[in-house]
């Protein structure tokens, strides 16, 4: 593997991680903590939205994020021919 290719692979990897972590931060720290009071103004069947993100919603998003990461990385690995 050339050094250039390795660098390109790493760059793509980092960019995928950063995008996913942005979502991770927004749902947990954003929706569940920092903007909880604002989101709590919205209610669905009696459940305040900010409260729901803090206690359940963010957990579902976490699971989905890892699922996307796994698929995404497998694709990047194959693209750069570094898969196992």
């Amino acid at each position, binding site marked *: *593997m050339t050094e250039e290719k*390795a660098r390109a*692979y*790493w760059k793509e*990897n980092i960019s995928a*991680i950063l995008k*996913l*972590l942005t979502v*991770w931060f927004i749902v*947990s*720290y954003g929706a*569940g*903590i*920092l903007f*909880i*009071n604002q989101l*709590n103004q919205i209610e*669905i*069947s*009696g*459940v*305040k939205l*900010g*409260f*729901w993100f*803090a*206690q*359940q919603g*963010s*957990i*579902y998003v*976490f*699971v989905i*994020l*890892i*699922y996307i*990461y*796994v698929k995404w*990385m*497998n694709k990047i*690995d194959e693209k750069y021919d*570094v*898969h*196992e």
Partner: protein
Amino acid sequence: MDLQTLIYLFVGVSFALYIVIAIWAKAASTKDFYVAGGGVHPVANGMATAADWMSAASFISLAGIIAYKGSDGGAYLMGWTGGYVLLALLLAPYLRKFGKFTVPDFVGDRYHSDIARTVAVIAVIFISFTYVAGQMRGVGIVFSRFLQVDVNTGVIIGMVIVFIYAVLGGMKGITYTQVAQYMVMIVAYLIPAIFLSLMVTDTFLPQLGIFGTTTFAFDDGVKTIPAGTFLMHALDQAVTDLGFNAYTMPGNIWNMFMLTVALMVGTAGLPHVIVRFFTVPRVRDARASAGWALFFIAILYTTIASVAAFSRVNIIDRVQNVPYKQWVTEGVKQADGRINHGGWFKTWEDGSLLAWNDRNKDGKIQYAAGKAFKDPKGKPHFDDHKRAPDGHRLTTNPLPPAGHKPFDNEVYIDRDIIVLANPEIANLPNWVIALIAAGGLAAALSTAAGLLLVISSSISHDLLGRVMFKDPATGKSKLSDRQELLAARISAIAAIVVAGYLGINPPGFVAQVVAFAFGLAAASFFPTIILGIFDKRMNKAGAIAGISTGLIFTFSYIVYFVFMGGDPKDYLFGVAPVGIGTIGMVLHFIVAFIISRMTAEPPAHIQEMVENIRIPRGAGEAHDH
């Protein structure tokens, strides 16, 4: 069959299963002992990680903590799940590619330093012992509550079981018993949760139950909340009527933020979790495995939030204004004709988890905000096992100051009761109660075993193999694989004995497990591993300075504010000790970065190693010593 027989049966069968698995999965080499031979299927590893992760505290205490904290409890739910995103994206794949056995292995090799390795070993041992003592105590408590044996006897029974499968099977035995333990605990948790959800909201899935409406009208003591009210509205209304803050109202946003960061980052930095990702065959399996682990954890964690809300409503409905004597003996009828029998209250008074103090002498129980007993923590001091003529257990506390709005609280409710007594409160059959006992033990034992393994491997592999018996010429261990395996088993035995001792005589720091274990992991392992992978320029001097700063700062802060009577007014930036790991982590990053840039870059072979860790291919190759 009576309850006691069923409990013996369920606990006995589950223990027999763990031992059979241990004998089947006996470790033959150090690779088996440390990383289960490195060939665990990602789904199995995910399940084992989930069991490893979810401790007696998750299983027994968390729903209760959230039922009382309400909205702020979200810090624990997000903190103890969100860390897996960090693990999957930032740590697991690279550590798997690195392909050694322990966390100190990575620290020692990446920073080519025995000092760093030794500091890492000490941190692993301190964090893991703090954590494991609580688990052993948890085993003892479950035994004492369900099997009427002494707490200490319970701890010793737990030691014997863990001894058999951890010493014999090592990581291999532990992994496959954890798979079984996960299944036991998830079934034990979900069955009562589903019944409870049906009972309170007529919704099958507890996760959806919080969107439901109440199936019954209940008297909160101030007014009656009609059936068909949205559950969360009913809950907010009832607790505010009783003088508590609204259930869904957030408290201090800043401290919740800091605590959540410390818990997430701490989770990703805990050695007994990280080491699980060394057991799968390939890098892609490590990624998938983190996903499976979180999936299995999420099933339980999303249920916890609902159980907490249901239980709070349920307790108010069952306890408020019932005449004690009639309630615990023959039961009473609620206004709408539902039978409400308080036998469970009497049972759990014996377990010291509930107590009633009839302050207004009306013979009825009143539940509201405030302490029912005069004690710094509101805890009852029982008068041996003596009971009053009406049957309630007597206490010796003086009367607390009266005159609270809307009325004075008369009940002490330990938070653990939420999970332990739910099946009885919901009138579920005896086998469900027996299942809870088996589930609680599974949760405590699986975590204890994972921690003990991490302690024993850092002693035998890192301290003995890589530091004390290092051959200076080759840099490798002078011990043969068989000698090191024996050393690992002896260390495991020693670790179990120490853990059991700490479980029987818990020192003060055990109660601070959240602050210490998560705070220290967040301030030490997480940043040093991240820098080791993502910053090629990070060197020995930077790493050692960073780890020391993180550890010393966090440790001293906790000790000062928790044990030396530090005044909360002096909190740095207003951060409570449980969230201080976050500041420790930031300091670690800053110090490590500055020092590394002021000193020489790491040698070429280390930089090559970092390059190599970043590429998945080649992880399947053998990595023995």
